[in-house]
């Protein structure tokens, strides 16, 4: 244990005398925390989209019976998540998209109200993209989402208008049309009056069957029109999503990003420090001196892993503390953050010493650490269903034998209460520590 303490002191002194590395360890968490905090606490910039409304102000209304809907009144509601740049002509809209001034153009054609009012033809809004795959995908999803919302709003309005007419037909009331107001009797009142007339008529009256058939029609109409109102409401939004999360609490994307950022930082600090500091012993030729009975291999590995894990844990905790200035994190769970960060750091550091034992110099160790870690991060974050099931099984196995995924799950569970819980992930990490520890020990032989 004394040897571990002396080696730790020596390595801390070496770190302190490596100004670039020390600066990186201090500034990296601070800079990353501030950037993530700013990114999460401020709304993103809106995509600039050229906007041309060809509907003349006098023709922007559509008539649905006695009700009039102003299409232009929906403009602000529909496109509030886009930065609309008004243009005067189609040519200007296309030019703006072509030269990159805007990422897309939205053109509302002049005949839209007419098409909507008649319902004979589909109503279109023209969208022009600039051909860049990323931009197109970004703006297309935003616009399609907004058009979906527009359709829903119009359908709701139509449902309201149609529902009003059905109520009038059923219950009666006043109807204004072409400046005139009419009293509508309504089917329920008609049915009652017809029933009263039938009751007063002798059964053998020649008009009885004819009035009875009209009364019967009124009864059927009252029953079925009441149902049709509900049917119209269902047609306006036939299927709605009711969200349920089977895998623990839902993690907001913002907080998910925090957990990813912290875990990636733990991984880089641990892998680079642990592998680098072990490789440094070989680079300085001190490895042979230490290994000839001065320090046991297990102590040497533990010292490097401990150094890297402590540095990474400090970096990870500092990041969370920094991010919490911008985003509300639950400080009551800070103890659990520390446990998750420490467990993740130890697992990464053990992998780091296993890698460091394979190489003879610091540069090779750093390169190896980066080569191993980058693909693992991407693989671990591949969501289920994004790739073929067989391939996903391979990815799951690969992700399970390296510490990124369980470390991420531990941090995510500690910060966001996601599932699986912290302790399950820590159990997984403990198994990996044992495995990589054994590999590191074998790597130091010879």
């Amino acid at each position, binding site marked *: 244990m004394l040897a571990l303490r002396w080696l730790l002191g020596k390595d801390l002194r070496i770190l302190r*005398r490596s100004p670039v590395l020390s600066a990186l360890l201090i500034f990296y968490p601070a800079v990353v925390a501030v950037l993530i905090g700013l990114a999460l606490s401020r709304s993103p910039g809106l995509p600039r989209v050229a906007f041309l409304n060809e509907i003349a102000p006098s023709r922007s209304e559509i008539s649905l019976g006695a009700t009039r809907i102003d299409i232009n009144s929906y403009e602000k509601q529909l496109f509030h998540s886009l930065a609309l740049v008004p243009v005067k002509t189609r040519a200007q809209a296309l030019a703006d998209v072509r030269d990159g001034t805007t990422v897309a153009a939205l053109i509302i054609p002049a005949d839209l109200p007419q098409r909507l009012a008649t319902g004979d033809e589909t109503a279109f809004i023209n969208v022009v993209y600039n051909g860049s795959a990323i931009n197109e995908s970004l703006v297309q999803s935003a616009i399609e989402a907004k058009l979906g919302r527009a359709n829903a709003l119009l359908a709701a309005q139509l449902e309201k208008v149609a529902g009003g007419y059905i109520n009038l037909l059923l219950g009666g009331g006043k109807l204004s049309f072409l400046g005139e107001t009419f009293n509508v009797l309504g089917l329920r009142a008609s049915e009652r009056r017809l029933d009263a007339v039938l009751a007063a008529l002798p059964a053998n009256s020649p008009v009885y069957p004819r009035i009875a058939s009209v009364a019967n029609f009124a009864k059927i109409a009252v029953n079925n029109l009441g149902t049709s109102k509900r049917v119209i409401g269902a047609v306006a939004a036939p299927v709605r999503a009711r969200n349920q999360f089977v895998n623990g609490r839902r993690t907001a994307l913002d907080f998910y990003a925090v957990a990813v950022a912290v875990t990636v930082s733990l991984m880089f600090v641990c892998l680079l420090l642990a592998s680098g500091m072990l490789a440094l012993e070989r680079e300085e030729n*001190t490895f042979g001196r230490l290994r000839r009975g001065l320090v046991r291999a297990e102590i040497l590995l533990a010292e490097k892993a401990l150094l890297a894990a402590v540095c990474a844990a400090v970096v990870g905790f500092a990041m969370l503390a920094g991010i919490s200035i911008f985003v509300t994190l639950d400080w009551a769970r800070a103890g659990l953050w520390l446990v998750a960060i420490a467990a993740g750091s130890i697992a990464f550091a053990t992998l780091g010493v296993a890698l460091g034992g394979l190489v003879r110099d610091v540069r090779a160790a750093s390169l190896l650490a980066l080569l191993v870690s980058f693909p693992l991060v991407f693989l671990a974050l591949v969501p289920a269903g994004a790739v073929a099931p067989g391939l996903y099984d391979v990815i799951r196995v690969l992700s399970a034998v390296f510490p990124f995924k369980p470390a991420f799950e531990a941090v995510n569970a500690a910060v966001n209460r996601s599932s699986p819980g912290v302790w399950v992930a820590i159990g997984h990490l403990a198994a990996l520590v044992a495995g990589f520890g054994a590999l590191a020990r074998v790597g130091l032989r010879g």
Partner: protein
Amino acid sequence: MSPPTLRASSLGKRFGDRVALRDVSFELAGGEILAVIGPNGAGKTTLLSLLAGASTPSEGSVSAPAGERIGWVPQQTAVYSKLSVLENLRLFARLERVGDPDGAVETMLEQTGLRERADEQLGRLSGGNRQRVNIAVGLLADPAVALLDEPSASLDPRQRERLWEFIGVRARAGTSIVFATHNIAEAERYAGRVLVLADGELLYGGTLEGLRGDRGHDLESAFVEFLRERGH
């Protein structure tokens, strides 16, 4: 002759299929200075690292009297370039579990003439001074046997002279010395006995005069002729 302080028995080392050293046996007496000579790739460094315990033999064994320390000065400096001379010496004195680390460090700074450079980082010292620190670290624990691999390779003539003076003092005090060298003249001047290695094989163990035999040349030419006669 004093009892042996180090004994190598049928030592061998393989790296995969390559045999780096085979069946090397010898004994070292207390206070003796032994030179290991041979061409490049002969196995000199491998032999010294096996004797030092820095690597494990594939065959055979190394034995030393219980409790005796073996000091090792590897061919390439094995010290921390970001630490000062003093910090390096202190660290290794502690790791070697020297009884009085500070006293041992003071003695070594004095004997190697490094006191004025004690606070300088190793990375800022000349190759010769780094090698002096390397030697100082190897001998810090006042070992019964000191193994030095090409100890004078990066030293200037004045530093070399000082090194051999220092080693001589140690040997007279009872420390057994084994050093590997390419320099036949150095072996002739300082070693009482030589081991000749070639391609991992021990070809000769004895005095240099015995090696010269009746070859009648200068020592270096006699050594080359000896190797040629043995097929190397």
